[in-house]
């Protein structure tokens, strides 16, 4: 589906950033957003919708559509396209609506 340009591929190989996505190790390049890293790794959907549980993935890539929500380091409902991927980041699928604990 998505394929890195040769320059991007070279940057990835020179300085790979290791992330954990749903328990699996995934590598991206420095400067990738979380959403871009997911796409590059072939992961097209990252959450299930609150009402019908339908899978959704990043769409607008600019902070508007909220379709790229993921859990990052335990924080739910993070917009993957607005967060830079950092080494060791733990990214989990957003399962429906987040909760507010009482």
């Amino acid at each position, binding site marked *: 589906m998505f394929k890195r340009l040769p320059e991007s591929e070279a940057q990835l190989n020179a300085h790979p950033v290791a992330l954990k996505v749903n328990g699996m190790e995934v590598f991206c390049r420095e400067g990738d957003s979380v959403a871009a890293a997911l796409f590059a790794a072939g992961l097209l959907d990252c959450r299930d919708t*609150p*009402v019908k549980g339908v899978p959704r993935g990043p769409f607008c890539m600019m902070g508007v559509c*909220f379709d790229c929500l993921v859990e990052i380091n335990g924080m739910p*409902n993070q917009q993957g396209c607005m967060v830079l991927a950092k080494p060791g980041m733990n990214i989990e699928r957003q399962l*429906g*609506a*987040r*909760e*507010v*604990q*009482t």
Partner: protein
Amino acid sequence: MSASTKESISNQRHHKGVYDALVIGGGLVGSAIAFGLRQEVDHVAVLDEGDVAFRASRGNFGLVWVQSKGMGMPAYGHWTVSSQRLWSVLAEKLEAITGLEVGLEQKGGLHAVLTEHEYESRVQFMNKLIEQPGMIQYQWKMLDRKELLDMVPGIGPEVLGASWTEIDGVANPLKMLRALHTAFDVQSVDYLPEHPVADIHFKNNIFEMGTPHGIVRAKKIVIASGLGNQLLGNQIGLSIPVRPQRGQIIVLERTKRMLQLPFATLRQMDEGTWLIGDSQEEAAYADDVVGLPILATLANRAVRTIPKLRDVRVVRSWSALRVMSKDGFPIYEESPQFPGAFVATCHSGVTLAAAHALRLAPMVVEGKLSEEMAPFSTRRFNVQATT
């Protein structure tokens, strides 16, 4: 549904002749009245200004609210309660016609107090309100902290209690507006956007509205143009003292439903987002800015009410303009100079939607506002204060 939705985008008039009734204003007030008129007569039109209008109906909080209302005018308390009682009838009618639910929940409502002073003031205010001569009577109760905790788990340590009624509630104002406009499509009400009214003339018992798309004629008209009422009122010989009062709202991200009962300034929508609101500012027509002093105050009170909201993200904030009359109460009146021309204006277009659709609209069709509407006329602004 898709075919009729498509048609709604065009400004085609289905009815070419004189309308039985016409509403100027396509917001919640105008739309509710037009919906009600259509249940009584065949040919109804709504003239809407377009998206240059201030659009209070797109920015409101969506309470269907009774407590606190009517201090100084018991008739307003009665009118509000009558609307609250009819709301489910209106919601059911709309759903039957359009298939759309409008998120009505009438399970009770709360007004939180965070200090001893607020607690005492609230008790005094509610007692005074309900004890007014001629005031509508309904059950209300001051809940202490423990009683409130049973109803709303998760309140913060500063929350001392809340005033509560069983009859308060909420709706989803955007879904409501959509349902009313969808009903226009289904029932062939001519909704005509980009039709600001420049002038109104009365000839041979017919009203003629001048618009950029030509003259539109009707036997009866209702002016429900929010902040535009002042100018349009002049056209029918009424002086309508309304001004903008700005309110700011913070929207939090969607979460699983947690808050079942609304607070007057904090609610969770049917689909999971949270609204924090209810500021009041005199800021003229500046509805395109929000400000940190107000937003911070709103947010601070919300997290003191439910501390766990501290971790829930803000996704937007906006301001919108309430349509406030001189004394804060609605204005309903038939023009003495041009019988058949009415004005309707208020700042509670959601709460009063049912009264507008199911009580006011039939009076307009009949051509006479009932006795109980007399307190809402602009004559009240001309009375000399007695000493």
